[in-house]
């Protein structure tokens, strides 16, 4: 017989059994809890190690700050939540029952002050008559100002369990997708049997289990399989599966959600059992598992019984007691009372006895039980109290005894330091319900079983209601075979291991009537049975109302140990059956998942990929300041030494372009190559303006509408050949335009012969703008090509070569209003071309310019861009009404004529300049008539874009103003209260530079 605390090497762990358990006794690890150092063994959880060290108080409850200990031995734990690790790795609300100990682990209790032992907030317990479910809906209303100032801050101070770290999480996370013929969720006896049956066919099998070790309850219960301890069978199966190339075992991996299409979300805790993750290894990994067939073998969770003081440290689930003894070799108490309503009580009595504990009594609520159970109780020397219930517990921070209500109605007290309770078992059916299936109640087993299963899912073991070990092996083997057959493999017959079928008889017992003290249903959220009664009284009878009103089942454990008791109590109070009462909806995740895991690689700087334009390197070398445009990093401006701010730089860049020549990387513009016999007809239906007449070798500015008549994008259309067009889009809309074109080509007009290919990245493209632009280009364009104004006039396009034969495309286009070209070369030459242009441009005083100067010049010219193309403007609104064809069908034609869109009162594009020319303009300012009050009725539009115009020597703006074009000369207010601005501006032509357009033509 094993006896606690007397062996060598475990002397400091008073409750460690001398033998037994699967921990590695040859090694010792040291950890701290609330600053005190303890020892444990590899294989321990924090909970088992604390128990070994005799620590039973592990936390304080959420609302009443009652002392709490360890209730369970698994992921259902509501009470023993701790803060793990420190500093940037501080991790709140970790269940001590699943955290593996390692050398150097630091754990702290949470939600208490100043200490766990003495928690000031425990006064809440005294106020508990007030703090009942929903009390705050009825209070704190008067005076209303105090809610934000006083009440809510107070509530918030009390809120929350652990503390999130103050620093960025330093660990890494990753994600992976895996494909399986058969996914087995749960590595208990049922899951192992299923995985084995499936694996022997050579199908691809993935087995996941949330624990570090496989085996499940069979091992926890110390049962026998094929006449040997279950863990030996587990070891053999594990060895076979591990060596099979078609099997992947994911330990420490929780399948947390069932999603559509046979997809499961799972999280692998790769390094949580280590002090620090190894170099390059993530802390956790998100698995998206795509499975043809899934065997759910997730087992069952034991139910507590609701009785007075059932939350006191030392009250534990009976199955957990067995787990601590059998799996971890620790004894959670020396004088135990076992309290149950089912035949499994016997195995707890036996386990305790075997471990050397005194079993004071087996309290069974049933009047009749089997002889077998009686025999075991008597062998263990336990008093058998039939038809009796535990009504309350004695002690403060640890149980010292219980009060019993006997069958004959007497009250009795028993001394004990452990209450092992079991109210029956709830199959872990959550993953079967995530897609909306409703569970069904089973009156014999007293639990909910899965209803209609998600496509491809089958069940094995306790989750299917096969509660006995023998049945899990039979069911697991056949579920594995069936699944693998459904996945298209010929099943191989696998011998079913033998195990005894212990009795699973159970009788209803949800709560103990007239409890002695508070009887908790949801231990973490401090919901008591009287809260349920109150909810019922107040009309919150629907289970979902009950949940929301009392917060039952809403804690970190999602009511794994609470929900069924709660609804059974509600059923009892309302005189309905349990199925009539129903169960609340379970949602993913099955157990909580770290947010970092769900983000993986894509966090902080790597949130989204970064796209670098072809001459990024050159720009960087030249001190460029970049700006994010979608995913692109575009050159924004190129400050030079001595320039005091960006404005000075931009002024210089603009002036250089207007007076000499500048070069700008415009490679990010979307570029689309269109070919095919019907391309002209196709483009004609997509653009609002006519394109059929565009001659070969020419470009034209074009606009596209959405079907609702609103501008979608603008750009240029170049005709390179009879059936060959090359269009540009704005950087922002490049992807959207291709998608739109494919939609039109594939769905609206599939009969047209048109091929659409995105060529955005093929071409590095540079605007070369300014009076000297041709001279500069002349130096790089190969002599065979005539780029004189006669040979290459405004809006010309040509396929040429540069720098001795490098193929290029030249467009004579201008956004700046100057004589300008765009020259494209294959992207690999972009950086070199930029260098060459800069070099060759020196003699003309050339400079590089970025999006800022580009923006200034387009505003000076009254060209629209993003702020005007904002998804709500019509062509008419932005001065392009004249371009819209009236003759042809094109997308947006019909709806563009709706009254609301042609209303002359709609704000329309016009220019602005400050009346006091020294004043600055700001986009986003709203227009008001000069003398009008600042009210909504007087709002006449807003400034869309502004720039300091070096050419004019003052700020200029574009804006949408009611009847704008009719109001040139009028003075209006540009009202900008959010920046404290209120400026008088003059309505002027939107073209601030070269209104006749002489310069662009040269």
């Amino acid at each position, binding site marked *: 017989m094993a006896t606690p605390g007397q062996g060598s090497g475990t002397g400091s762990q008073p409750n460690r059994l001398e033998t037994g358990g699967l921990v590695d006794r040859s090694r010792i690890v040291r950890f701290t809890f609330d600053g005190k150092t303890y020892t444990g063994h590899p294989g321990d959880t924090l909970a088992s190690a604390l128990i070994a060290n005799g620590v039973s108080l592990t936390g304080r409850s959420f609302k009443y700050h009652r002392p709490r200990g360890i209730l369970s031995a698994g992921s259902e734990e509501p009470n023993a939540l701790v803060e793990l690790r420190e500093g940037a790795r501080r991790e709140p609300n970790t269940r001590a029952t699943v955290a593996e100990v390692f050398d150097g682990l630091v754990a702290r209790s949470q939600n208490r002050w100043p200490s766990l032992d003495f928690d000031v907030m425990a006064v809440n317990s005294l106020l508990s008559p007030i703090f009942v479910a929903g009390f705050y809906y009825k209070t704190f209303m008067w005076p209303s100002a105090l809610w934000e100032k006083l009440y809510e801050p107070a509530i918030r101070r009390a809120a929350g369990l652990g503390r999130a770290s103050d620093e960025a999480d330093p660990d890494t996370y990753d994600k992976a*997708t895996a494909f399986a013929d058969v996914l087995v969720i749960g590595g208990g006896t049922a899951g192992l049997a299923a995985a084995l049956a499936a694996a022997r066919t050579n199908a691809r099998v993935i087995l996941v289990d949330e624990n570090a070790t496989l085996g499940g309850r069979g091992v926890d219960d110390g049962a026998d399989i094929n006449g040997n301890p279950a863990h030996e069978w587990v070891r053999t199966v594990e060895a076979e599966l591990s060596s099979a190339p078609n099997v992947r075992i994911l330990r420490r991996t929780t399948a947390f959600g069932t*999603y*559509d*299409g*046979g*997809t499961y979300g799972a999280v692998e805790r790769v390094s949580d059992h280590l002090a620090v993750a190894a170099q390059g290894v993530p802390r956790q990994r998100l698995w*998206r598992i*795509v499975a043809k067939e899934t065997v759910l073998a997730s087992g069952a969770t034991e139910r507590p019984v609701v009785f007075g003081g059932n939350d006191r440290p030392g009250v534990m689930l009976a199955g957990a007691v067995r787990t601590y003894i059998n799996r971890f070799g620790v004894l959670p108490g020396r004088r135990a009372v076992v309290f149950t309503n089912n035949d499994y009580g016997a195995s707890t009595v036996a386990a305790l006895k075997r471990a050397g504990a005194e079993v004071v009594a087996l309290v069974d609520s049933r009047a009749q039980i089997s002889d077998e159970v009686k025999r075991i109780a008597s062998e263990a020397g336990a008093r058998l109290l039939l038809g009796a219930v535990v009504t309350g517990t004695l002690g403060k921070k640890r149980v010292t005894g219980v009060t019993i209500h006997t069958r004959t109605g007497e009250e009795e007290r028993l001394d004990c330091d452990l209450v092992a309770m079991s109210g029956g078992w709830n199959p872990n059916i959550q993953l079967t319900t995530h897609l909306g299936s409703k569970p069904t109640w089973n009156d014999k087993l007293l639990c909910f079983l899965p209803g209609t299963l998600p*496509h491809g899912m089958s069940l094995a073991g306790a989750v299917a209601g096969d509660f006995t070990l023998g049945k899990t092996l039979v069911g697991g083997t056949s579920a594995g075979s069936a699944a693998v057959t459904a996945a298209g493999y010929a099943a191989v017959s696998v011998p079913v291991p033998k195990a005894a079928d212990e009795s699973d008889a159970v009788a209803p017992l949800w709560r103990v009537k007239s409890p002695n003290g508070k009887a908790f249903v949801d231990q973490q959220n401090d919901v008591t049975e009287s809260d349920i009664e109150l909810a019922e009284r107040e009309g919150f009878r629907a289970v979902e109302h009950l949940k929301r009103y009392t917060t039952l089942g809403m804690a970190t454990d999602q009511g794994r140990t609470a929900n069924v008791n709660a609804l059974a109590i509600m059923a009892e109070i309302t005189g309905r059956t349990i199925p009539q009462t129903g169960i609340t909806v379970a949602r993913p995740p099955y157990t909580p998942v770290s947010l970092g895991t769900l983000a993986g690689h894509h966090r902080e700087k790597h949130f989204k990929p970064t796209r670098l334009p072809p001459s990024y390197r050159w720009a960087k070398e030249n001190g460029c300041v970049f700006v994010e445009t979608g995913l692109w990093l575009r050159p924004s401006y190129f400050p030079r030494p001595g320039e005091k701010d960006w404005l000075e730089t931009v002024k210089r860049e603009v002036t250089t372009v207007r007076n000499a020549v500048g070069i700008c990387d415009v490679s990010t513009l979307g570029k689309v190559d269109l070919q095919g016999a*019907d391309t002209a*007809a196709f483009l004609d239906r997509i653009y609002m303006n006519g394109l059929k007449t565009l001659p070969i070798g020419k470009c034209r500015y074009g606009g596209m509408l959405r*079907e*609702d008549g609103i501008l979608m994008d603008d750009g240029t259309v170049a005709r390179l050949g009879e059936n060959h067009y090359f269009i540009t889009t704005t950087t922002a809309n490049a992807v959207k335009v*291709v*998608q739109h074109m*494919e*939609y039109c080509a*594939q*769905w*609206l007009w*599939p*009969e*047209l012969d048109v091929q659409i290919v995105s060529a955005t990245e093929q071409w590095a493209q540079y605007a070369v703008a300014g009076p000297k632009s041709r001279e500069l280009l002349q130096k790089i364009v190969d002599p065979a090509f005539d780029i004189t104004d006669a040979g290459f006039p405004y809006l010309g396009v040509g396929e040429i070569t540069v720098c001795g034969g490098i193929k290029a495309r030249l467009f004579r286009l201008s956004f700046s209003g100057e004589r300008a070209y765009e020259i494209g070369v294959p992207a690999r030459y972009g950086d070199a071309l930029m260098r060459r242009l800069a070099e060759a441009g020196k003699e003309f005083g050339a400079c590089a310019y970025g999006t800022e100067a580009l923006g200034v010049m387009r505003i000076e010219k009254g060209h629209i861009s993003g702020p005007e193309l904002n998804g709500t403007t019509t062509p008419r609104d932005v001065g392009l009404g004249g371009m819209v064809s009236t003759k042809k*069908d094109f997308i947006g*034609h*019909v*709806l563009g*004529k*709706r009254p609301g869109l042609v209303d002359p009162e709609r704000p329309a594009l016009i220019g602005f300049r400050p009346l006091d020319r020294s004043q600055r303009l700001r986009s986003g300012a709203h227009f008001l008539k000069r003398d009008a009050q600042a009210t909504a009725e007087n709002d006449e539009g807003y400034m869309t874009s502004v720039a300091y115009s070096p050419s004019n020597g003052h700020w200029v703006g574009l804006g949408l103003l009611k009847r704008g074009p009719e109001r040139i000369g009028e003075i209006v207010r540009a009202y900008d209260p959010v920046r404290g601005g209120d400026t008088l501006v003059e309505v002027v032509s939107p073209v601030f530079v070269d209104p006749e357009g002489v310069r662009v033509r040269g």
Partner: protein
Amino acid sequence: MRIACPYCGERSLDEFLYSGDATVKRPDFASPTAANEFVSYTYERSNPPGMHRELWYHSAGCHAWLVVTRGIATHAITSVEVARDVALNEKPATKDSI
């Protein structure tokens, strides 16, 4: 959700973009009632709770537009067709040439 692209095979939802009802047909702009027809085509949707024929775009894949028939309450997909083929079949033959 996973969609079996006829070209690429079954892929996860995040490779696709949903783009609305596939049963509405773009009206003729020259029809005398075009104004109403376009309003109905562009804005009005049956949005039925049962099976829905809808357009998806394999944006992160082959760029094919697809007509997917899918249960709106169940997310179960019963068919995935190539939109171009569907459109060609539905178009009157006379319109085939322009």
